[in-house]
């Protein structure tokens, strides 16, 4: 059986939805970060699948590669900030990060 474009799109959409749900419902900042990674990777899958099935240029693949690199850079900074918070508070739960709420 031939694997078609729609299969990839459904997977990426499910990943995107899981990521949004996880970002909104998780209470641990690292779990939120993982959810965001799911969303970013869903977009990368979209790019690669569209490029492979529909178009003959390589822009989608390039965008996916750059997207992965940028996601890695963002994660590095986010984890550095979280390590700093852990050193200050000994916790990375969101309930400890609401001192400024009004």
């Amino acid at each position, binding site marked *: 059986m031939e694997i078609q474009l729609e299969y990839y799109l459904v997977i990426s959409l499910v990943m995107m939805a899981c990521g949004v749900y996880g970002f909104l419902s998780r209470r641990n900042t690292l779990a939120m970060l993982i959810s965001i990674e799911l969303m970013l990777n869903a977009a990368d899958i979209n790019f690669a699948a569209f490029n492979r099935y529909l178009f003959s240029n390589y*822009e989608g693949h390039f965008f996916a590669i750059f997207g992965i690199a940028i996601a890695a850079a963002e994660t590095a900074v986010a984890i550095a900030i979280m390590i700093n918070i852990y050193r200050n508070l000994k916790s990375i739960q969101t309930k400890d*990060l609401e001192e400024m709420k009004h």
Partner: protein
Amino acid sequence: MDYSQFLNMKEELSLMVVIAIVLLYDIIAGDKRKQTMTPVVIALMVFHTAFTLVPSQAYSIFGGMYTHTPMMSIVKAILNLGVIIVFLQADIWLRREDTKIRAGEFYELILCTLLGMYMMIGAGHFLMFYIGLETASIPMAALVAFDKYRHHSAEAGAKYILTAMFSSALLIFGLSLVYGSCGSLYFDDVTYTVFSGGPMAICALVLFISGMGFKLSLVPFHLWTADVYQGAPTNVTSYLSVISKGAAAFAFMTILVKAFPELVDQWQTALYILIVLSITIANLFAIRQQDLKRFMAFSSISQAGYIMLGVIGGNALGMTSLVYYVLVYIVANLAIFGVINIVEQRSGKLEFSDYNGFYQTNPKLTFIITLALFSLGGIPPFAGFFSKFFIFASAVEQGYVWLVFIALLNTIIALYYYLRLVKAMYILPNETPIATFRSDACTRVSLAICLIGIIGFGLVSAIYDCINAYSYGL
């Protein structure tokens, strides 16, 4: 490949030279010589700004990935002016014992974000735009969490990076849908491909607008703003509130005009709703704030709504008034943040009530903050009046009469809470007002520049005409 094309990116190259020199100076100069860091960086930035303003023609390079128009030079020069003012104001903070060792990092991170904004403005391809956007927002997270032993700063950093990543994930998913429906990500190709009306195209547009809405902190994507502005170091807050917002607004406008002209009805409807929500809700929340930085955060959300009034028309007059608004907003907002910063450094006070009776002890600073608030509120003859007038005119020209009416009503609410601060400073009594102090030379210079801008940019019509000569639209 023709490597000489790189020479056409002259503003980016000159900024990269500035970054390299600052980095080397930071590493090589001894502790004594680091005292001269601020003058060195300011001098470099002034040279760089002069170089940016050298007249140039419109062109595009790398097959259209990078574009340049004279308007972009003007926007970049305006951003440079803001960065120079922020650097001047940051001097006193960077001389403190706990931040002294990290002073170089502050300059480098700010200049890196500025480079990202340049790329965002000059992009002709969505990949270039995305890289620029991330180059602007990743170092910004490090800046927000700069005071790493202060809990508020770390908390603000976490909130900023998580929302920035979430918004960029939405944005890049939207871009993947643009790619799926057009097969190309060059703005020009996106325009020429059949790209009208389909559900996928509308999904892409909605995701793109919501991603940019987070960066511009429009309601309902504004929830991070107040916390981040309060928690970040004051100088970073001032940078975040004016410069990154101005750059994002201009890039947003160029993309909507260049890449999505087919969907103009859809994005105008979306922006209509966002503008009404941003202006109204932010104004109502600003009334009840007690912390000055939170207050300025909500004020800046509503100002972002006004800036979007220039975008919604998508015409040349809209672009002129947007750039002019950003210019006027930069000097007025930075004047207020300059005073907030110097008061925080000298006395550690940030609450609204601390400013009661401020006029008795520091009349000059009170005068500056009053003029800046009048300019933000839009009282003639200050520049804020003219910038508001032009931005309303551009929206009315496109037929958005009711939208402008709502915005006008909101300027009255805005005036109420701006004048609340004025009343606190001049009229309300206080047993223990903030003690009289002398500002340092750098802050005084920065406030003088802001003061000249607040009065001069409105009265010298040559500035508006100069911007108007280069603007373009749908």
